[in-house]
């Protein structure tokens, strides 16, 4: 199946420092892709590049960028898709709503702009959207200011706003960070449901491997500005090829079972740090001399793709 969104060779630098160093990523129709990585891995930057929402000092270049067959390299194409064809759910829901306007007005203003609706029509559609994100008293929420709503409720409103343009792809950037566990579960379920109800696709950015296991069909693991491992969620959790991805899964599963996690030495590199040919090599338990000066080759095995000289082929190791 051809991809809905296909990005190849995306490079971004901010003030001369390389942030993304050749990101390849694709989202297939109807799937939810999880994008996992630690701070500075480039998860949000990848999403922002697709939406043409990079910070002012950033420069981006793509080798390929297509959305449903359309060339997305011209910034104008990406700007026009924003809101219409690609919806965005932010990390801090209350912070992304305007504090001085009622949330209903913010939602209907979005509808009037994106779908050329009149006032009355937009109000009716806004209430429908609030209902579709499982808000039981849409009239009250419509009249509320953001500070009168809980964090979970604000996030439902943001999801409704993201749905306003009837997008084909919904990008959610850490949508449940800062929410309580029980609310997080509800928001994730809601996201999964609204995406499948609309036959849309999703890109879910997170650092939580539990969240990925719960809602994502495929996972892309990023490290230091590159995607190092991609595969079906079940395959990645059964045994990721890339040692970094493999270790992350191993840490998460040992903690979850009350066992002692394996340590990953060192720290995540900062932008501008000198990087080895494989950026993970200095922290890697499988690294050999070649890892430091030869570009890691592409390994395609058991439904996964990874960039590594010494891929892990023995499941999740070592426990």
């Amino acid at each position: 199946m051809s991809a809905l969104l296909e990005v190849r060779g995306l490079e971004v630098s901010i003030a001369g420092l390389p942030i993304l160093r050749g990101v390849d990523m694709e989202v297939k129709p109807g799937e939810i892709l999880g994008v996992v990585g630690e701070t500075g891995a480039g998860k949000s930057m990848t999403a922002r590049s697709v939406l043409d929402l990079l910070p002012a000092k950033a420069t981006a270049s793509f080798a390929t960028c297509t959305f449903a067959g359309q060339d997305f390299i011209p910034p104008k194409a990406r700007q026009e898709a924003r809101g219409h064809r690609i919806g965005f759910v932010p990390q801090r829901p209350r912070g992304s709503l305007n504090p001085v306007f009622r949330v209903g007005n913010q939602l209907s203003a979005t509808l009037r702009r994106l779908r050329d609706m009149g006032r009355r029509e937009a109000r009716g559609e806004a209430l429908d959207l609030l209902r579709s994100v499982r808000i039981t008293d849409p009239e009250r929420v419509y009249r509320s200011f953001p500070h009168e709503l809980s964090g979970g409720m604000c996030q439902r409103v943001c999801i409704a706003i993201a749905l306003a343009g009837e997008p084909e792809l919904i990008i959610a950037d850490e949508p449940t960070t800062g929410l309580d566990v029980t609310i997080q579960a509800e928001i994730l379920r809601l996201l999964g449901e609204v995406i499948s109800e609309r036959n849309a696709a999703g890109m879910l950015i997170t650092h939580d491997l539990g969240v990925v296991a719960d809602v994502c069909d495929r996972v892309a693991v990023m490290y230091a500005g590159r995607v190092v491992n991609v595969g079906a969620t079940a395959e990645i959790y059964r045994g990721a090829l890339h040692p970094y991805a493999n270790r992350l899964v191993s840490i998460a599963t040992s903690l979850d079972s009350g066992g002692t996690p394996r340590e990953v030495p060192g720290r995540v590199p900062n932008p501008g740090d000198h990087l080895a040919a494989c950026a993970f090599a200095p922290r890697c338990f499988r690294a050999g001399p070649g890892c430091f000066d030869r570009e890691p080759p592409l390994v395609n095995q058991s439904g996964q793709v990874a960039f590594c000289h010494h891929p892990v082929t023995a499941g999740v190791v070592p426990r």
Partner: protein
Amino acid sequence: MTGAADTLAIRDLTKVFRIKTGGFRHADLKAVDDVTLSIPPGRTLAVVGESGSGKTTLARLILRLLEPTRGTVLLEDTDITAMEGAELEDVRGRMQIVFQDPYDSLSPWQTVGRTVAEPLLLHDGLTMKQASGRVADMLERVGLSPEHARRYPHELSGGQAQRVGIARAMITRPALVVLDEPTSSLDMSVQSQILLLLQSLQEEMDISYLFISHDLSVVRYIAHDLAVMYLGKVVESGPAAEIFASPRHPYTEALLRAAPRPDPAHKTDHVYLVGEQPSALDRAPGCPLYGRCPISEDVCADTPQELVDIGAQHRVACWKRI
């Protein structure tokens, strides 16, 4: 629950905040309501709950950063609830805290060495020169090098900054350390480093930890005992392994069911509790979970639930589950 040998024993600890509700009206908010807990030496008690459950207020009461409305705090069998002045300052060296945000909790103007030495200067009356040897040892112990003493917080990564916070807390060899979400702002790979460090320090110095967290996977790994809080009340407590294996209180069950697990075969149970956590001001006089609980009955609304021991130190505040 109270033994003569406990590092920390709190009894009936209560904190009521008087909140202005507009005009001349006030309302009483019970942030911590009749909490009784204890921690033996070298053990970790995790306090788990969602935002607004009172876990941070509880920590502040224990450290005497807030005055309790009622109840007692015993640190190593000494009642510190009413202590003041120099006496209290002495006790503070025996109890320390590690904060959630490692950068916010370090002074940006002070070198790492000065920050780590400060408790020794305050509590042991040492000079900077006398302290420097112990500071260097402590920095090495937490996985930094003595050269880090000359650095400033902005030169450190998140993991390194948290190691400095831990070094500062441990340098007086305290009996009790409160860990307030110490790993939740750290990256995954660094998080496990910090957990392993905390565990080895505990084994080496026989420290008791009060570990505050909302991350159940971290708690599952580090906690010996567990107390689950909801709207200021402890609703379930006991050995962590026992509670994870067979949670009894509906709220504990909801938390465990809602927590996403790193296993694609396991699907999170999304709907269990009804609605969202109300404000502690609007709490029912009976069970705090009344209104959201899937198994509640009318009597739950106004019958207060006390913790009842159901064997092996496992205690539950729900009449339907004892």
